[in-house]
């Protein structure tokens, strides 16, 4: 247990400036962090500070101006909207990633079926996305990402489109799925309590241009911890106040 786990994602001195016709936008300034295997890490920060930019750079969808990203593993990336294709059945939607990566083998199809069964979606496999509730759609989107067997998962406000009640359920669900599949997670959220309830580590970014302000280790010392049960821990509000004060500081500056 005490043995040091290896780091599988490292960001060193990342800089990003967007060029647009009406000027430059400096989004990231010297961002550094490190994620170890099996960790669940959240990123919080003022709105518009560059969180999505950071994830896109880690995923290789966006060019960086300077710095290095080290990745040891396969990246899966889940966006805020489920983006299910309404002309495909659930099953065909889940296969999309494999299809794009030319990996539609029998073995992978079986793996997808297994995931659908395991997470209660198998009986809906021939339904269309519009026939499913928001929470189920989000789970389908997750399985679509898991189908390509990522070892590192990037989540960009993946739950913020859901209403509060569903969101609690879905985060609990998805947390268990991810722990089950032993996936390392880097999650962006604007919800402090969501970050605390799921993470081992919370990275707080400053306002734009974003740089890492603080990294909190979150440890509830609860056996078989879940996002729901750790909300009941007295430590929860302690962490919450700590991070809220930290964030409030930047939001104030932004308002000025």
């Amino acid at each position, binding site marked *: 247990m005490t043995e040091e786990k290896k780091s599988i994602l490292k960001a060193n001195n990342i800089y990003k400036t967007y060029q647009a016709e009406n000027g430059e936008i400096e989004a990231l300034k010297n961002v550094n962090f490190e994620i170890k295997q099996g960790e669940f890490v959240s990123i919080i920060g003022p709105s518009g500070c560059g969180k999505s930019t950071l994830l896109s750079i880690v*995923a290789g969808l966006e060019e960086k101006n300077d710095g290095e990203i080290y990745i040891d593993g396969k990246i899966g990336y889940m966006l805020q909207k489920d983006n299910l*294709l309404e002309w495909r059945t659930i099953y065909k939607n889940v296969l*999309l990633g494999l299809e*794009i990566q030319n990996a539609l083998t029998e073995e992978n199809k079986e793996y997808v079926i297994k995931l659908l069964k395991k997470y209660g979606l198998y009986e809906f496999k021939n*339904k269309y996305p519009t026939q499913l509730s928001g*929470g189920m759609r989000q789970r389908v989107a997750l399985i679509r*990402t898991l189908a390509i067997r990522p070892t590192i998962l990037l989540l960009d406000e993946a739950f913020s489109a859901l209403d509060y009640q569903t969101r609690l359920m879905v985060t609990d669900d998805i947390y268990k799925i991810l722990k089950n599949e032993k996936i390392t997670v880097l999650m962006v959220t604007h919800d402090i309590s969501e970050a605390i309830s799921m993470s081992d580590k919370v990275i707080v970014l400053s306002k734009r241009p974003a740089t890492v302000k603080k990294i909190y280790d979150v440890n509830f010392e609860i056996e078989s911890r879940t996002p729901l049960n750790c909300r009941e821990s007295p430590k929860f509000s302690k962490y919450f106040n700590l991070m809220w004060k930290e964030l409030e500081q930047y939001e104030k500056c932004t308002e000025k």
Partner: protein
Amino acid sequence: MKNAQKNKEIKSQENVEIKNKGMISKDRKKYLKKIKLRKLEIFITQISIVVIFIAIWEILARTGKIDSFITSQPSRILKTFLDLSSNDLLRHLKITCIETLVGFLLGTVMGIIIAIILWWSSFISKVSEPFLVILNALPKVALGPVIIIWVGAGMPAIIVMALAISLIVTILNVLNGLINTDKEKIKMAETFNANKLQILTKIVMPANISTLFNTLKVNIGLSLVGVISGEFLVSKGGIGYLIVYGGQVFKLDLVMTSVIILAIVAAVMYESIEILEKIVIKQK
């Protein structure tokens, strides 16, 4: 433990919601009946309007209130229609249909291909933008005489005419649809490292199926416009020729019959596309 239970509850609620869709309540039956009745009402009214219009026309012509030499009259139109062979109506109809279909297919295929090229390369798209806008605004019928000089007074000229009228609109409509595909869906495909061709075939094209079919529907009408105006100019065959000819020799029965046949042709072509659309969408 408690959480797991809550979880199951939510899942089973979702199930119930979906199962409910299969059952029909009393209120629903009532509602469905009401809708059916309404549709029937509308249909009967539409038919009545046509019947009354034809009846008044016929009566006015018979009683001499209007001059049937100028306005023709339904019974004479019917007679001309039944006498298809004497006026070579079938041959002309065939010519018009072939020209329209060829023009339509060429316009659609070329239009979609060009739209895809413009979607692919924003440079080409930006370069061609002002030209497309001007060509779109230009009344293509004005090109008629030029076309005839260039390709000769015959079927090719008429097909080019149909193409000229439908092509630019197709390009603009399809391109507009392609460009406005949900950016988030494209980004989602990119998270799986999709290349541009995959984004086109797996996201952009299927997302625009209804745009494509709407374009087809507009196109079939435009091709017909192009063909008829081409036939007016070329004056060798086809329904358009019959109309011009009938007008010149004051055979108003022939003109009216031709116009009605034209309306039927347009309706049949439009309807075929609707049926095709339903088949394609059902297969998905």
